[in-house]
């Protein structure tokens, strides 16, 4: 057993508690340094572990309770595969970047901010490495509690406490749904280890109400975290309230943790017993993904609050991730994984630019910032590079992810998937491009009647901010996001890893019988013509529509009015009322669960 595995989570957690112990008496700079080290060291460990997971699953048993081959696991075990280690690596890299960026960004009680960030990052890393369903739940809650707290960090400046409150209530209820699912599974199988539950469910073979309800509740509970329609409402509120470096983690990895959880639990637990119902499950999840992608893209175009705009863009991309996952195909899943990586870097960079705007210009409203970003050259460069990365241009940014998902979809007969991906990408990227043109170039009109007005955060702009480190991190992330797509080796490795990830029997053999599963066949990258065509379409579409919408004042008045009327209902649904959100949560769970109930017989 490799002691590096638990240290990935233990180091940041220990550092968080120590920092809380001495934080009052040490200077802020020391707290920052401790935080960065405590995030960077486990990042390196996760990287090392990642290199050791080639075609293998490393298990780790806490307290030394390693069961003998074939015995019942009585304690908590982690099972680290490529995806898990890679995801933990991504989380810790982003955590380190966020903490480096915060060096100059955060003010009061900095040590508490660092403490909560470390707990947040460590919880996500632990969550993706865990192989025990209740252990996953515990770290899911730790991640949520730290996230709730972080949204409210700048409590004096961001008066909309709405964001934190709605976030906390909706996500807590999502966690209850997961817990109900866990309880049902425990009642049937009497086990908590994912592999053991999977084996027992498959041997039992019943796919009755219990299994369907458990699957529905666990899926819907995690879809709340993954911000899928109709569970997505909290996300925009939380992002608009949270500090920029926290948003980086929210959009970059926290939302994706929800998808990771669904994928992990589906392929270790339900794949056996529900395997023959792949078709209905695929169709239901695809439906949710499509609705999410379209809603996110449409709502994104209506925002002028930059962080809220980026949040809706995350929802649009979340829909695309769900489509990649829903195809239930290793190649599409690998595509979703590289897509997540490229998106995390690019979107993170955009949020960090938002933070720079808040700090130097004292505002986050696109229209109010019109032309005010002209002299922020590095930030502007980062913004446009990241926009390009999200537009999925050929062989850059999110392209490889898109291509893998699209190819696998057309192989499975879902010819319309590329259209949805293109719509979501164009809709969201056009809005980001539009905001960039307005803020950094000063293009177009300073008014747009369609965009919804939000109370803007208005911290006093700092007189002489030192932007060096902040700009460097921002630019670095943007470039990383763009280059991800150029590295096709990453995509092929992700597909190989996805083969291991989706191999239920291999996982069970590795965890319960300590056998090494056969390594997946090596993959090669095939560029298809259609993927390049679609990449050009999304790129050109994003840029044209983004450019066009800057000049909305030159559009015919009747068209603007018609658009405004058409957007009325969807705007009204996003009401900001926590009761509405919970009502939608119940309704969405009923619809998704009901569809599973009707189709899985």
């Amino acid at each position, binding site marked *: 057993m490799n002691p590096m595995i638990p240290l990935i989570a233990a180091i940041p957690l220990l550092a968080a508690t120590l920092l809380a112990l001495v934080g009052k008496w040490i200077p802020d700079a020391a707290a920052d340094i401790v935080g960065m080290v405590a995030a960077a060291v486990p990042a390196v460990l996760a990287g090392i572990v990642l290199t050791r997971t080639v075609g293998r699953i490393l298990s780790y048993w806490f307290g030394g309770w390693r069961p003998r081959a074939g015995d019942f696991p009585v304690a908590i075990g982690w099972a680290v595969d490529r995806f898990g280690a890679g995801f933990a690596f991504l989380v810790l890299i982003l955590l380190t970047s966020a903490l480096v960026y915060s060096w100059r960004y955060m003010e009061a009680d900095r040590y508490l901010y660092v403490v909560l960030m470390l707990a947040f990052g460590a919880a996500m890393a632990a969550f993706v490495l865990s192989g025990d369903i209740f252990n996953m739940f515990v770290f899911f809650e730790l991640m949520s509690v730290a996230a709730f707290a972080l949204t409210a960090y700048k409590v004096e400046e961001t008066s909309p406490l709405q*964001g934190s*409150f709605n976030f906390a209530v909706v996500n807590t*209820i999502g966690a209850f749904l997961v817990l109900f699912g866990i*309880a049902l599974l425990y009642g049937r199988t009497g086990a908590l280890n994912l592999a053991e539950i999977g084996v027992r469910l498959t041997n039992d073979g019943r796919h009755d109400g219990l299994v369907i309800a458990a699957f529905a509740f666990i899926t819907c509970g995690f879809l709340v975290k993954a911000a899928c329609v109709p569970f997505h409402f909290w996300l*925009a509120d939380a992002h608009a309230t949270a500090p920029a470096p926290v948003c980086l983690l929210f959009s970059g990895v926290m939302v994706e943790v929800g998808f990771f959880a669904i994928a992990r639990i589906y392929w270790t637990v339900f794949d056996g017993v529900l395997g023959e119902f792949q078709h209905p499950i695929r169709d239901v999840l695809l439906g949710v993904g499509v609705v999410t992608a379209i809603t996110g893209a449409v709502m994104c175009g209506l925002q002028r609050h930059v962080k809220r705009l980026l949040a809706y863009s995350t929802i649009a991309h979340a829909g695309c991730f769900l489509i990649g996952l829903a195809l239930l195909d290793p190649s599409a899943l690998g595509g979703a994984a590289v897509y997540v990586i490229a998106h995390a870097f690019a979107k993170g960079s955009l949020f960090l630019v938002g933070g720079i705007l808040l700090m130097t210009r004292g505002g986050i409203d696109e229209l109010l910032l019109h032309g005010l970003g002209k002299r922020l050259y590095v930030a502007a460069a980062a913004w446009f590079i990241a926009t390009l990365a999200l537009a999925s241009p050929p062989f850059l940014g999110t392209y490889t992810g898109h291509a893998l998902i699209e190819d696998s979809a057309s192989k499975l007969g879902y010819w319309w998937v590329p259209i949805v991906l293109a719509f979501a990408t164009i809709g969201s990227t056009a809005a980001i491009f539009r905001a960039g043109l307005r803020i950094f170039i000063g293009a177009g009109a300073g008014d747009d009647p369609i965009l919804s007005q939000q109370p803007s955060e208005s911290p006093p702009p700092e007189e002489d901010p030192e932007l060096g480190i902040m700009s460097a991190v921002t630019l670095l992330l943007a470039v990383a996001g763009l280059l991800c797509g150029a590295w096709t080796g990453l995509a092929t490795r992700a597909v190989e890893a996805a083969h291991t990830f989706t191999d239920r029997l291999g996982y069970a053999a590795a965890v319960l019988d300590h056998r090494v599963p056969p390594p997946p066949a090596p993959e090669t990258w095939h560029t298809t013509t259609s993927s390049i065509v679609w990449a050009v379409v999304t790129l050109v579409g994003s840029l044209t529509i983004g450019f066009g919408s800057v000049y909305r004042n030159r559009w015919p008045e009747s068209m603007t009015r018609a658009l405004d009327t058409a957007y009325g209902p969807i*705007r009204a649904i996003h009401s900001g009322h926590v*009761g509405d959100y*919970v009502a939608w949560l119940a309704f969405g769970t009923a619809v998704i669960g009901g569809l599973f109930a009707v189709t899985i017989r």
Partner: protein
Amino acid sequence: MSVLPYLLAVFVFLVGLYGIVSSRNLIHIAVCVSVCQSGTYILLLAIGYKTHGTAPIFGDIPSSRKVVDPVVQSLTLTDIVVAVAVSALILAFALKAYEHEGTLDPHEIVEMKG
């Protein structure tokens, strides 16, 4: 009759949800969240119960005695701590919202929509 404890868990959970949806007060919502959560305790403990089983403490009973499942009890203990922590946090948000907006009505604290 023998499914009554399970149905109780479902009932408590749904009642709590109803309270959240229909509420006009943030503190009331925080309390309803904790009611919702108690539904999960009940379900867990009901699953692990054994007729005529005793508590899983072997101090003065022979280890061959039939005992109820200790695992669900430990899960519930964890769940309870989580519930208190989350409730304290949600209440703190509610208080802060009150301080800023001067109201506890979820309808009136809405500043962002659309």
